[in-house]
Structure formats: C-alpha cells, structure tokens
C-alpha cells in the first residue's frame, strides 16, 4: 500500500510499504477514506519529538471502512464505516476504567522507553513516535487498529467524512481543553492559538456555557475564522499587548480559564524573546518553547484554571511556578481521552449544534502529503487543516 513515511527532519514522502495484517485477535484493518495532518504531526516533521525512526508511517487522524476483523472483535463487521480515536486503549485496565483512555496501561509496548522520558507511560498512539508504541499511522491506504472492539465509533448516519473525521482527535481535544476548565455561567475563556484545536476549543467553550471566548493568534486569516466560524473575540498579539487587552476585556480580573492550544513550538512577537527560547531549544537545553503557556499562566485570573492541550515533549525552562502557586491556579492537561467524548460529540454533530468541517482549508490526494506538510507548516495559502484522500 501507499503510506506517508517520515524520513528525517522536514522530510516526508509517500512510499510503498507492506499492507498491514491482523496481529492480535482484537485488531481490525481499516481501509482509509479520509485522513488529516495534525498540528502535532508538525512537531514530528520538525524533528522536535524524540524516538522517531526513519520509515515510520505518520498520521493519527483517520477514518474509513472495516475490511477485516480479528476473531475477538464482535461489535464491528466488514463494511462498517468508522472513525478511529488517536489513542489506543484496551478498555480493561484501571486507567480505562476511570475513563482516562489516553493513559491506558496496556496499549504501549514501549512503556519502558516512555517511562524513561516521562516517569511513566502513556497509551499507544498511531504514528506518533516510538515512545508512544511505534505504531504505524493512518496517513496511508490501510491501517491496523488494535483493540478495535474498544476504540472506533461507527458512523451510521449519512454525514460526510469531513463532518466526522475530526472526532479522531482535534474536535475532542479542543472540547476536552474546555471541558476540564469546569466552565460556569459568566466565565470568560481565553484560547491561545487558532489552529484546529484552538478553533474547537473556542466552539466547545461556548457549547459548555462560556459567556465570552477570546482567541489569541497572529495570523489574521485564523483570527477571522475564530471570529466568523467559532464566534470568538480576537486579539492579534503582534498588534496589541495581550495582557492589556485581556485585563481591559475582563474588568481587570483576567480570564477565568486559559487554554493553551499552541504547544512546544510557540512564537513570540518580540524577536529577542523568541530567539532566547529558540536557541535553547535548538541546543537541546530545553525541549519546549513555552511562551504561549507562560503567557496563559501569567494572565489567568487568580484561582482560575489553565488548560494545556498544546503538545509538550520534555522539559521547559522558565516555567512560572511562582504564579501558579501564589495565585492558586489549577493546571489541567493530558492527551485527550477521545473515547469518552466520541458519542456525545457525534450527537452534537448529528443534532447540528456544530459542523466540524469548517476548519478544512485544503483537500489533497495522499500522494501530495509532502506538499500538504509544507503548506501547513508554513501556513501558506491560509492553511488551517489539510485532509488527504488515499
């Protein structure tokens, strides 16, 4: 089959590789109909995530049709149309029993590597480095889905691929970003980053009852999408002082909840500040450029919640722990527990409360994946989301 393969920093290409096979009785094979490039794929593409190997198939946002099932999979049959959550979860361990699916204790065969990096392991994740299992990803014609009796959700209505594809990651991730903030009536929520996760965090904050949502970015086209499609008020941090505007908009209190949808490759409008983190990251003195997170912490209302949905991989310098401690902030974070959001969010889509397809700006053939990565990385042609068709 054809698959998008990582071959070093800033290099992906579509190659022929063997077709996936059933390896465990609870596996299924999915013939992929649509797959997307995620912002976190760019961290792999840019070479900031350790434990990647040349030849790894990328992609963790995909959907398609079941073409084969292992002997123990009884809830799915050949021909079913499914969306596959990016975390792989067994459904039987203590973490899964608590609904913490992205912390599944059984799905990462490389748990001892992850333990060295992070103290303990996460779940396995499709196409997302060897510390999260070394699973082939879904930017391909076919994918093997372990624990297929637990993860994939069947789509039985006639919704289009683009309306349901983002259940695999960015919609639930944005939703969880808002959900963990425990939003109460009257709450003002600020969202750093207007990429796909940011857009869904904004929309979800409204679904969960936020009074106002303020979105922060520097790309006018993304801010426009946040205003027009997700309903946010916006701040362009290259044009105004985020702190002053946030204080003004919140009567001097600061936002009740701040959601970081940026992660480890944050940008700073001041060249010197940006260079500081950039150099430390390039020389591996830190693995993160944490400016967005620092700003989210610094500006949050005292006693408020900071929710981290942007991806971080290792260690950050100048983490403002003094602000967190002295002002009683709560930090909530985690890879998204997608499984617990699939049903309720599909209901929202089916009822018409949200149509997630609004983020799609580029549709390409799988064979153009390399072009898709470049377009998305450099935000060319007002790119927000690339969907690939195998």
């Amino acid at each position: 089959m054809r698959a998008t393969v990582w071959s070093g920093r800033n290099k992906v290409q579509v190659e022929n590789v063997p077709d996936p096979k059933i390896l465990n009785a609870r596996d299924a094979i999915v013939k992929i109909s649509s797959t997307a490039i995620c912002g976190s794929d760019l961290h792999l593409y840019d070479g900031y995530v350790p434990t990647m190997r040349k030849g790894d198939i990328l992609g963790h946002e995909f959907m398609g049709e079941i073409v084969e099932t292992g002997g123990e999979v009884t809830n799915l049959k050949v021909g079913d149309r499914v969306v596959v959550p990016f975390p792989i979860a067994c459904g039987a361990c203590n973490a899964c029993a608590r609904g913490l699916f992205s912390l599944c204790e059984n799905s990462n065969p490389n748990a001892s590597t992850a333990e060295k990096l992070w103290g303990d392991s996460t779940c396995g994740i499709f196409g997302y480095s060897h510390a999260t299992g070394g699973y082939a990803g879904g930017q391909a014609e076919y994918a093997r889905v372990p624990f297929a009796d637990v993860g994939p959700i069947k789509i039985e209505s006639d919704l289009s691929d683009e309306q349901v594809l983002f259940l695999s990651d960015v919609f639930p991730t944005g939703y969880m970003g808002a959900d963990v903030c425990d939003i109460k009536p009257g709450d003002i929520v600020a969202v750093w980053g207007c990429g796909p996760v940011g857009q869904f965090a904004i929309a979800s904050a409204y679904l969960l009852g936020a009074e106002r949502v303020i979105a922060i970015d520097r790309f006018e086209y993304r801010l426009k999408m946040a205003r027009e499609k997700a309903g946010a008020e916006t701040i362009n941090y290259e044009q105004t002082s985020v702190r002053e505007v946030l204080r003004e908009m919140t009567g001097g209190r600061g936002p009740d909840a701040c959601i970081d949808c940026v992660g480890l490759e944050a940008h700073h409008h001041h060249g010197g500040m940006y260079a500081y983190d950039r150099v430390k990251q390039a020389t591996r003195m830190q693995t993160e450029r944490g400016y967005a997170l620092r700003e989210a912490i610094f500006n949050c209302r005292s006693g408020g919640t900071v929710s981290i949905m942007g991806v971080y991989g290792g260690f950050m310098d100048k983490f403002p722990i003094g602000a967190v401690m002295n002002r009683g902030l709560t930090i909530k974070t985690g890879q998204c527990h997608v499984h617990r959001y699939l049903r309720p969010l599909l209901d929202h889509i089916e009822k018409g409360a949200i149509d997630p397809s609004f983020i799609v700006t580029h549709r390409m053939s799988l064979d153009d994946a390399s072009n898709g990565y470049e377009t998305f990385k450099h935000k060319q042609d007002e790119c927000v989301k690339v969907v690939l068709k195998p």
Partner: protein
Amino acid sequence: MSSTSKPGNAAPQDPMAKGLGIVSFALGIPQTFAAGHMNRLIGVKDNARNRWVMRAVGVRELTAGVGIFTDRRPAGWIWARVAGDTMDLALLGSALRNKRGSQTRTIAATGAVAGAFAADVIDGVRLSRAANGSGNGSGHAPEPEPEQAVQVTAAITVRRDRDELYALWRDFERFPDFMAHLEEVRTTDTTTSHWKARGPLGTTVQWDAEITDDVPGERIAWRSIEGSKIDNAGSVRFVPAPGDQGTELHVDMRYSPPAGAVGATIAKLFGEEPAIQLKDDLRRLKSIAETGEIVRSDGSPEGPLGRRQLKQRPAHPLPDDELADISTNGGAS
C-alpha cells in the same frame, strides 16, 4: 531496581591493566587533539561530524586511562574499555558499509580494535575473577552467592482478583507466555519443574526448580535445586490493591547470571537490563490477565520487550517473512 555486585580486591599494580591504561592514553591524546589526522589514519572521511565522533572517542579513552591508573580496583574501567571497543567496532562497521573512505585503512583499524577487545576481555575476566575470590568450587550453592547475584524487584497492579492471578502464576508452564527469556517450563511433579531459557548471545540454559513456599492466593516462591548450573530464586506476593483496583504483584528475583558478573555486563551491553526486562515481563502478564492478549506494534512486534527498546523496527507493517519469524520465536498471544 537492580543491584549487581562490586568486585572485592584486585591487584592495583596489575601490569596488564597498566598496559591497557597506557593504550588508552596513547589513543586518547591524538584522538582528542588531532582528530582530523586520526580520521585519515583509519581511512574514514574527515568531515566535521566525524571529527566530533573522533574527539568524543578520545575523551572516552582518556577517561578510561585516568580511571585505570587512579582506581585501586581497575576491573570496572577495563570493562568500560570493553564497552568502548564494542562501540568502536560498531562505528568502524558502519564506516565500512559507507565505503566513503579508504577501505584498507578502515579494515586495518578494525583488526587493531578487535585485538584490543580480546585483550580487554581477557584482562577484565581475570581481574573480576580475582576480585570475586575463587568462586564456589563445591557445586552446592544453597543461596545465590551474594557477591555475584543479581537481585531485581518490581511491582505492578493488575485489575483482576488475586485468586485468578495466583492461578495464572501457579501454572509455571505458562511462564514463557510472559517471561521473554523463557523458552519452556515443564512441570515434572507437584512442586518441581524443568526450565529452559534463552541466555544472551544465543545461548540456552536449563535447570530444575522447586517450589519452596506456596500459599494459595497469597504468595509463591521457587528456586533452582541444588547443583543447578544457573542458580536462581524468585518469589511473588499477591496483595489486594486499595479501592477496586485489583491486585498488586510484588516480585523479587535473584540469580547468578551465567558467567557471573562478566555475563551480566555483556548482557547489559546488548540491552538485557534485568530490571527493565522484569518490568516488561510483568507488563506482558498484566496485559494477558486484563485484555487476553499482548498488544503488538510495528516497532515492537513481540510486545513489551526490554531489548526491543533499543532496536525498534520502523513503524510500518512487517513483511510476511519477518512476521512469520516473530510469530514462531518469542511472539506472544
């Protein structure tokens, strides 16, 4: 998690160790300060990257040299040289595959390093033996010799009740399902069994074991019977986890690795870190108990396996022949 023995007294003035220390300096100084010349001498391409590799190797040599001359018990430093030689052989091997420099010079350099490797191993074994005394000549070892024994402990929580986990563990014939090193365990009587394990570097070891303690639902202990080639003992306790989280397994294993401390060191060089391996074995057991299978990925087609952590396959589907190979050896479930 793990502890290995430290050698006792070795001759601080050992002439062979001294010689190897001088070799370390003789190589380390030009490698560190004239990396370009050294690169050309051994026939690899003299670019910036290779110069840094050469300097790093030089600093390592100097460190080993200083260690050998200053430590009263240089055995550890000699083993560090063995590790270094292994690394150098790997580097030279990759240089030979690249075919960018002078093949003849690289082959000559490889020969020289192989010679040093042999000398280092011989001296390392000699010094370690001297340090460990004369060993146990009697053939009867009631407890694994504390000087040479490796002890590893690990704990894991499994969401199953303890009677079920006890029953799974009490069936020793199922051990190879989750203990990656075991090829076969055959029950020979109610309390005795015959074990066959894969050692490092393709070796096989066999021994007989007996159950020494058995309290249903609570604990099991076993050990190799007197006169076994590989002297080992293990125990597992089943403790209810707080809340409704299932059962905690607390495992304690002790063994004298084949070839003593030398064997343990070589095994580590090849990624067989006992503490990690035990934890991975327990992860496999947990996976069998909780999910009915051991999950496999493209990078780790055998499931959790210590040595696989260093030698991941790329994350794309395996071709049929590799798949068949893994299903027949060491593939689980």
